[in-house]
């Protein structure tokens, strides 16, 4: 299980179960809790403010519909919302480009997943924030540009003046290392 990073003052009380069971009172809490994070993501993937706000509406629309699919054994609630937001933003980006991108890492992330045994075997897991801080600066930079800002591997390679394969390696190794840290596994030499 992953540990959730809670924003200052954020209550850990889960909301998505209440949403799934039709508790309207949870809606406001959910918007106030996750809205800023979703908007921060949307702003980085959008052309302007109006586009970002449209994206936020679509994301929450999806969230109301899919809240019942949240599984606390697989991710934190915040992680679930972030992933859902990212998927929607990828969809919007693809529609904007009027083309379907086939990027192996993204494609994998967009698919439903059954956690591996190692992921479920939690020992001394660290928080996502700690895991992120433990990455090398370049791993972190590439992952941030990819996950947060929606840059493709090619775009990151261009802006960082790195070969494409190197960017992919930084992202892959960074994710593996973060996963190991999040799940309390020993970090292999390869993942460092």
């Amino acid at each position, binding site marked *: 299980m992953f540990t959730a*990073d809670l924003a200052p003052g954020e209550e850990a009380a889960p909301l998505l179960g209440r949403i799934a069971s039709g508790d309207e009172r949870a809606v406001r809490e959910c918007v106030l809790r996750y809205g800023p994070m979703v908007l*921060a993501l949307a702003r980085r993937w959008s052309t302007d403010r109006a586009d970002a706000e449209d994206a936020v509406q679509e994301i929450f629309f999806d969230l109301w519909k899919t809240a019942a699919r949240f599984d606390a054994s697989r991710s934190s609630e915040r992680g679930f919302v972030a992933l859902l937001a*990212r998927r929607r933003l990828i969809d919007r980006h693809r529609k904007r480009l009027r083309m379907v991108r086939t990027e192996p890492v993204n494609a994998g992330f967009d698919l439903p*997943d059954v956690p591996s045994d190692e992921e479920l075997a939690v020992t001394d897991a660290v928080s996502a*924030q700690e895991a992120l801080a433990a990455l090398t600066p370049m791993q972190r930079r590439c992952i941030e540009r990819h996950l947060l800002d929606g840059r493709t591997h090619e775009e990151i390679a261009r802006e960082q003046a790195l070969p494409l*394969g190197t960017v992919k390696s930084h992202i892959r190794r960074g*994710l593996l290392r973060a996963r190991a840290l999040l799940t309390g596994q020993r970090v292999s030499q390869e993942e460092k």
Partner: protein
Amino acid sequence: MSRIPPEHEPAPVDLHALEPTVAELTAVLARQAAERDASASGAVFTFPPDLAERLIADGEVMVGGQRRSVVPPAHSSGATATASLRASRRRSVLVWTLAAAAGLAVMLPRLSPLWRGSAADITTPTVSSSTVRSPAAQLLAELRADPAVVPVRWAESEDPAAVNADGEVWWDAARQRGVLRIRGLVPNDPRLAQYQLWIVDAERDARYPVDGGVFDIGRDGEVLVVIDARVPVRRATLFAVTLEAPGGVVVSTRERLVLTAAVGG
């Protein structure tokens, strides 16, 4: 430049298994980004209040719709009615996208006027929908079992949408809850028009009935519509259904008065 020789690249990994990691990292990156946005914009980053209110209004409609509503009773002819609910007067494309997705049928022309009230005097309880038997069927069962609750039949209607309609209103004034049972009302296309419930309260100005929200009727059949009054209806004397523009109206022109049920009438 930190170039990694191809021969040292890690072996392919199970990318699916990385999805939870991506979720957590994206969450923390986005939260940090929100904090940076906040500090860049001055003191405290404020989520746009109008956007928040839109999200909340849409969310309450959708989430409430999963719980309450228009329900085909188990013994009905399989009719379905998806009712969208208006939590506020805010119109949302998203809400109507939902309703349109229900793929409902056609709608009709016009009739005679009902009330003209001021928007300020209209209050908004809600009516909503779902396709599961409970809680509407459960509520109806409870109301039927309560000797204090007397059903009020819909009056015969000349409106083309309701010439074959019947059913009744079950209203529990003490607990402020109720159910409309409607059979034979013509399906509507929520992109074109929606049914709207009004409740005349004897203790309010009769020109300003309580807005009971909007609902949709799917294929011809029997449906249950839960009344979830958010403001007290102190003494209901008339329940009426009109046909209005999508989303309902604040002031009805009464062009299409489809159904009425007079308490004690």
